[in-house]
């Protein structure tokens, strides 16, 4: 018996009982639908995170005080697991260990040819009087290269220069949002702001920059770190950012930073480092690891409903075999072999689950579209997810169709013909 003939026969049997076939496949539709919806949500989250991380700059390497952050443990020491103080990053609790000397030594381009730019950040905050009342804004004390690393340009005026940093000039550059909060449409360049009792001159307003999901550069203000150090009595940096000359140089630059800072801090054992070095790629792989894990966990839970759906298919196929006992007897009498009957009933089960799977893919996509406005990012249905759904639903049909089909194929034709 040709596959096409089996296919036609099975299709006919399914369409003979349209209502029942549809209800039977509903279990599979819901199962596949939820798996597809969850996988597409997971893929969507992943892509939106990776977009946000890449706005941080793919060649940027961040140095944080404290131990242990990022997915790559090779640079923070292979003895990480044996490190007694290992655990969550502790930079929030201890005083920062990243000094101006660290920044200066990394800035020496003759010693570190693969490092393009280096900057440091001292984070502070101050209250300004905005159009909607008093508000606290973030102040970043940093160096002139920060503007290049973070892709910030001045819309009006200028970003502060290396000279301003060296002379700890009391100058401030405003984010576009902050500027309009404080001054509306007026040009604030040349006006002054008071930070902790110190008078700062506004020398620039930035163009609107992309928010990266972690900070909004538009609602911050930027001052030379030397000035910030005096005004906010902060000795060390909250973080250092290094830009490697290329993505391929990242690994080498990380090792270089590691070695330089260990030497600066007089630490010989890399596992005892009081800082951690991580690239955007490390952050990305950590985030991807988390979203992948959550996605597969949720999809796995949804897949349980596929087992339930499969049992429904098996149940209805058993009923169908009993109902069609005489048909099976007749088919055997006119020459159907056991394998013909087996093939016919397995094909029916697979067609049921497969059509359920295809409807489920549609349902999953629909669910994604419906919730998209509420979650704020687009779920992404990959061809891999669709292939997985088609494959899994066929396998469910095969697995749960075998037993009823074997039962049908083993019927004795005499008994089957006599069956009432």
């Amino acid at each position: 018996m040709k596959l096409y003939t089996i296919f036609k026969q099975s299709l006919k049997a399914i369409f003979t009982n349209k209502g029942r076939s549809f209800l039977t496949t509903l279990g599979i539709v819901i199962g596949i639908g939820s798996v597809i919806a969850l996988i597409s949500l997971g893929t969507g989250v992943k892509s939106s995170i990776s977009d946000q991380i890449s706005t941080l700059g793919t060649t940027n390497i961040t140095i944080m005080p404290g131990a242990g952050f990022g997915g790559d443990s090779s640079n923070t020491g292979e003895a990480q697991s044996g490190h007694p103080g290992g655990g969550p990053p502790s930079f929030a609790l201890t005083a920062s260990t990243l000094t101006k000397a660290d920044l200066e030594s990394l800035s020496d381009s003759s010693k570190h040819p693969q490092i393009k730019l280096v900057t440091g950040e001292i984070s502070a905050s101050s209250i300004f009087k905005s159009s909607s009342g008093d508000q606290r804004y973030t102040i970043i004390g940093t160096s002139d290269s920060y503007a290049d690393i973070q892709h910030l340009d001045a819309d009006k005026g200028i970003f502060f220069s290396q000279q301003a940093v060296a002379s700890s000039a009391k100058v401030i550059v405003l984010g576009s949002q902050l500027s309009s909060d404080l001054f509306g449409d007026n040009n604030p360049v040349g006006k002054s702001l008071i930070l902790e009792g110190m008078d700062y001159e506004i020398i620039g307003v930035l163009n609107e920059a992309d928010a990266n999901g972690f900070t909004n550069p538009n609602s911050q203000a930027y001052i030379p770190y030397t000035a910030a150090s005096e005004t906010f009595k902060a000795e060390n940096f909250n973080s250092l950012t290094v830009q490697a000359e290329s993505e391929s140089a990242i690994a080498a630059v990380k090792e270089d930073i590691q070695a330089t800072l260990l030497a600066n801090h007089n630490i010989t054992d890399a596992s005892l480092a009081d800082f951690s070095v991580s690239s955007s790629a490390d952050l990305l792989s950590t985030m991807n690891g988390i979203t992948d894990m959550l996605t597969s966990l949720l999809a796995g839970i949804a897949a349980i409903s596929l087992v339930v759906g499969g049992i429904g298919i098996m149940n209805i196929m058993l009923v169908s075999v009993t109902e069609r006992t005489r048909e099976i007897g007749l088919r055997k009498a006119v020459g159907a072999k056991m394998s013909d009957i087996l093939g016919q009933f397995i094909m029916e089960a697979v067609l049921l689950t497969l059509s359920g799977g295809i409807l489920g893919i549609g349902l999953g996509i629909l669910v994604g579209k419906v919730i998209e406005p509420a979650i704020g990012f687009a779920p992404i249905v990959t061809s891999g997810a669709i292939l997985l759904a088609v494959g899994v639903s066929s396998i469910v049909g095969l697995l749960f169709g075998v037993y009823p089909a074997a039962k049908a194929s083993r019927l004795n034709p005499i008994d089957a013909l006599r069956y009432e």
Partner: protein
Amino acid sequence: MSKVIELKGIKKIYKTGDEDTIALNGIDLSIEEGEFVAIMGPSGSGKSTLMHILGLLDKPSTGDYMLDGQNISKLSVSKQSAVRNQQIGFVFQQFNLLPRTTVLDNVLLPTIYGKPRNNVNAIKLIEDVGLGDRIHHKSNQLSGGQIQRVAIARALIMDPSIILADEPTGNLDTKRSKEILELFRKINKAGATVVLITHEEEIATYADRTIRLRDGQIVTKEEISA
């Protein structure tokens, strides 16, 4: 004329619990090509068992069954399926057709499971049994007599060595029964070998020869009346 069917010492014993039930007790029988034979007997005579063995739906306990000169009593299950498909055409008393399926598809059912030895035109067969205007009707739109006509056309589609009909008029009224029996006679005249199983004397008169069964053995008419 050559022998289509030859049975030698066919016995069928059913084991039910500790007791053995002998359904057929040494049947010797031969049927020539082109014959119209009726197998008659009351219920319990073993005629259904004989019909199942002739139709390869059941295996004899002992004895040999030659069909077209080939010993088929020892064939494997799947070989038996092929013989049923190619060499035997069935007409049953009831449940003869696939439900909700057209006349044409019912007639073509055996061709799904094997290639006919000689190509027979299904449409012509359906016209021959008098259903030319119902080719695309569904089986549940047909009367009892029409259903049996479709079954006869289906039995002929593979050009089999033998047509086995098990009480084909059991569910029909006298008029329809007569029409069906006439149809059997017609296909017999056209060359088909027909074996008809019945318990009615009147139906058996349509056949060239009547074989009588009682208690699992072939008997003569005189033995029965004795």
